[in-house]
């Protein structure tokens, strides 16, 4: 059977017709193709691919056979050979390889594709294979994956799914594979989505720039397109031109690279601010509970970090429960964990206040030592209960990955935490300013004895304020479980930073805590690239020490007659 008569490049749902027959000539096939023009263009690509290489069945058999090897170099060769051969089943074979579903039989090196239902089909013919004996998977490494990306890129430029087309264009941009050019031209011709079209044009430009045979003027014009793209990949593309490139082209590339670097430097400052805000929001979350207990009640609570840890472990337990009882709710598990963490940490906070701290009011040193002891007890309790190793907290799908705004990479989990920190802050502020309990708390803060004389039960206010502070630490724990390790030591990492923020911001002032957290976060992130993470932190500590010398009450000192 001649390969060209049954060739059809199976890319996703669209079935392409062989070039020896005009589209529609075989009647029933056309129904699968959405638009005639698409079919025409696709068929053209398929033909180009097919004409690029020998199209005889035994050649394809030999090509497919090359996958049955332990050598990665041979596998890379097989991928490249198959991709440019126009073999009818190139796409499914390469996709199976990418997903680790390509296997070969040890005895006769016949190659098979394992389907999701664990049945096997022959890689060459696509026909089901019943008994296949012992198989070995065709192995993957980074070189093979790169070859696959390039091949799949060239093969799925016409895929109906826009995301696949975009990633295909990106793959061609990175591989700069000249053989993809005809497919690329065809794809650009019929692309409707302007964003993907731009990606494809950039990919074409990359292919042209990298092609030593292209005319110099074309290459320089293409460099212009790459410069307009202006990101790190463009920079990498321009930097990778070989030394044999004509001087004019190289000059254009270098000046384009300088331009890109200048723009990126500006974006880099923006990136630092973003990282700083993100770190600041983490600091804010960790410190805001402490701002209440330390600020309002004057209790130096060394077990604050452990409240954060308990919040994180609550998230773990909630997710475990969900996994058993209702796996479908995994994406909203964090919203269930939030109130739970608040209640658990808050309850433990109230218990600590009632059992230990209330006996120690007015004795800061003893409070410090007692809460330090409590923190050790809690840590060891968690270690005994859950084990010393880290617990895996699942990140919901909407919190993974990143989005690009300009040349700024915004990671979803950090964005979510910033928004969450703002919500917690605003809610707390409203709560303290607008509710009777908030009023009582503020009254006790400003003048405990007078508040008591006015009929406020100060010891209950103390207990609930402590519970509130601890509960908010628990909320912070839910957020931190997404970016840090859920281990018994989680809290220790944040306690010093939290005290730093509260002291710097001014004891007892929520706005001060916000400003201090953001200032420290951004300052840290601007120092880190130059001074390194270790030295950056030291510099910040030194700065805070000096600042406290000058203003012992922090940025926003609380004013009032009763402030001792």
């Amino acid at each position: 059977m001649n390969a060209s008569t049954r060739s059809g490049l199976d890319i996703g749902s669209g079935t392409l017709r062989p070039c020896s027959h005009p589209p529609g000539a075989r009647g029933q096939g056309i129904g699968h193709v959405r638009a005639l023009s698409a079919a025409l263009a696709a068929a053209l690509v398929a033909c180009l691919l097919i004409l690029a290489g020998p199209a005889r069945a035994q050649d394809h058999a030999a090509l497919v056979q090359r996958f049955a090897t332990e050598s990665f170099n041979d596998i890379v060769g097989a991928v490249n050979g198959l991709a440019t051969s126009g073999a009818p089943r190139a796409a499914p074979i390469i996709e199976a390889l990418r997903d680790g579903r390509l296997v070969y039989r040890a005895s006769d090196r016949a190659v098979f594709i394992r389907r999701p239902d664990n049945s096997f089909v022959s890689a060459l013919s696509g026909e089901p294979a019943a008994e296949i004996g012992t198989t070995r998977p065709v192995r993957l490494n980074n070189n093979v994956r790169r070859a696959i990306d390039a091949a799949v890129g060239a093969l799925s430029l016409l895929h109906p799914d826009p995301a696949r087309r975009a990633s295909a264009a990106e793959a061609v941009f990175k591989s700069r594979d000249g053989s993809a050019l005809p497919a690329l031209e065809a794809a650009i011709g019929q692309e409707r989505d302007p964003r993907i079209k731009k990606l494809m044009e950039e990919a074409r430009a990359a292919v042209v720039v990298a092609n030593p045979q292209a005319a110099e003027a074309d290459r320089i014009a293409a460099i212009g397109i790459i410069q307009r793209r202006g990101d790190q990949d463009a920079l990498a593309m321009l930097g990778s031109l070989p030394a044999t490139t004509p001087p004019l082209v190289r000059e254009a590339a270098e000046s384009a690279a300088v331009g890109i670097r200048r723009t990126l430097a500006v974006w880099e400052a923006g990136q630092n601010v973003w990282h700083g805000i993100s770190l600041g929001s983490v600091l804010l979350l960790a410190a805001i509970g402490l701002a209440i207990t330390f600020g309002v009640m004057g209790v130096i609570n060394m077990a604050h970090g452990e409240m954060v840890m308990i919040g994180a472990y609550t998230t773990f337990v909630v997710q475990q429960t969900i996994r058993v009882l209702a796996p479908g709710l995994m994406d909203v598990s964090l919203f269930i964990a939030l109130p739970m963490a608040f209640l658990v940490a808050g309850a433990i906070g109230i218990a600590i206040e009632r059992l230990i701290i209330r006996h120690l009011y007015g004795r800061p040193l003893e409070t410090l030592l007692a809460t330090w002891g409590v923190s050790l007890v809690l840590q060891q309790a968690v270690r005994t209960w859950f084990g010393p190793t880290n617990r895996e907290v699942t990140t919901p799908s909407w919190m993974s990955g990143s989005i690009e705004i300009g040349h700024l990479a915004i990671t979803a989990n950090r964005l979510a935490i910033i928004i969450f920190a703002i919500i917690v802050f605003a809610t707390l502020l409203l709560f303290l300013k607008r509710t009777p309990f908030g009023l009582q708390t503020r009254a006790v803060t400003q003048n405990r004895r007078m508040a008591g004389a006015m009929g406020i039960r100060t010891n209950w206010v103390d207990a609930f304020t402590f519970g509130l502070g601890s509960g908010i630490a628990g909320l912070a724990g839910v957020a931190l479980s997404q970016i840090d390790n859920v281990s018994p030591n989680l809290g220790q990492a944040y306690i010093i930073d939290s005290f730093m923020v509260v002291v710097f911001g001014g004891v007892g002032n929520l706005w001060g805590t916000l400003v201090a957290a953001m200032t420290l976060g951004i300052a840290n992130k601007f120092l880190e690239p130059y001074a390194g993470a270790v030295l950056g932190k030291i510099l910040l500590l030194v700065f805070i020490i000096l600042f406290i010398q000058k203003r012992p009450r922090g940025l926003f000192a609380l004013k009032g007659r009763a402030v001792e």
Partner: protein
Amino acid sequence: MLNLKSKVLGLFAGAAMAAGVLAAPAKAQETIKIGILHSLSGTMAISETTLKDVMLMLIEEQNKRGGVLGKKLEPVVVDPASNWPLFAEKARELIAQHKVAVTFGCWTSVSRKSVLPVFEELNSILFYPVQYEGEESSPNIFYTGAAPNQQAIPAIDYLLAEGVKRFVLEGTDYVYPRTTNRILEAYLLSKGIKAEDISTNYTPFGHSDWQTRVAAIKRFGSTGVKTAVVSTVNGDANVPFYKELGNQGVKATDIPVVAFSVGEEELAGIDTKPLVGHLAAWNYFQSVDTPANRDFIARWRAFKKNERAVTNDPMEAHVIGFAMWVKAVEAAGTTDATAVRRAMIGIAVPNLTGGISTMMPNHHITKPVLIGEIQENGQIQTVWQTPGTVVAQEWSPHLEGSRDLIADHRPPMNCGNFNVRTGRCGGAQR
């Protein structure tokens, strides 16, 4: 187990005497005590607890086979709590008070440095199972982990062969990454990599905010020259590091990260899908398909009563070290430290990757080097390995001062830092 439990309890309750007396009649015969010095609490507990468990398993199995020299083995577990000075105190307690014949323990280099004088002073034996920075060879310590040339240097060779021309050396700020990176920098320069193509950076223990570093790595890797990250990041910090790599979309096909302290255990806590293809260099992977390894994994899972328990490289080091010690004791006919030390050199036992590891005169063992890629299921699949085993260079030839030193603990040399230039034992000093 019952004896052990009563021992530990007795220690803490201050009733050690009573417990000892009560336990004594239960013992029908004399036992050989084996010290286990791994942190069971504190930051290192995450890594070291499994090593304690694997030792308990090995001892239990040996006892089922009849023990050693006709005596049962008795584990003595102490907890140095990730506290480096406490390691020295606990080591002294094991040797002087419990009279252990041998100790298996330590993870971080700083803990090993802390116990080294104790083992030398009291003439006892320590088996150290973790890959480390080299530059040491004590007559009383047997190093069953990898020296730099058994892990780091082959990994660099692999990357160079892959065409990588720019290197980010990313490490945690302590002795192991700093020494390893010093060796690697010297090695890269000797291989013709330009100094401006090497970027070295350190972060503190437990670093959790990797945004800036990952962005910097992306920037460093965007010059069009193939770039790789060599990571000596240790402990907990790896999890947020890899998470950030995944979130910022640093793919292994663009900038691969090769790690020296990330094993199956660390990967168990992360979603590994975005990390597929990043590399790890070790001397053992759980995925290695040999009969010895399959058997070991089955035994370990049965012992842990957990069908998904993972194994890792330092565990294999303890398996090898323990088998060597048993052989050496049987050859020497005694557990006396000096005799066992002498008998140890030249002992060869099968490792779990299908080869034979031998204890060399420098107190390090021969090991195969495997480079693996992280898979979607959290396992690491070998993509390259040395044809045979590699002999450790405990004193790196790439560092000034250590270049002229060799270690040979056989008579007549009996020296861990013999200077071939001056012909004297005693290191680089004249």
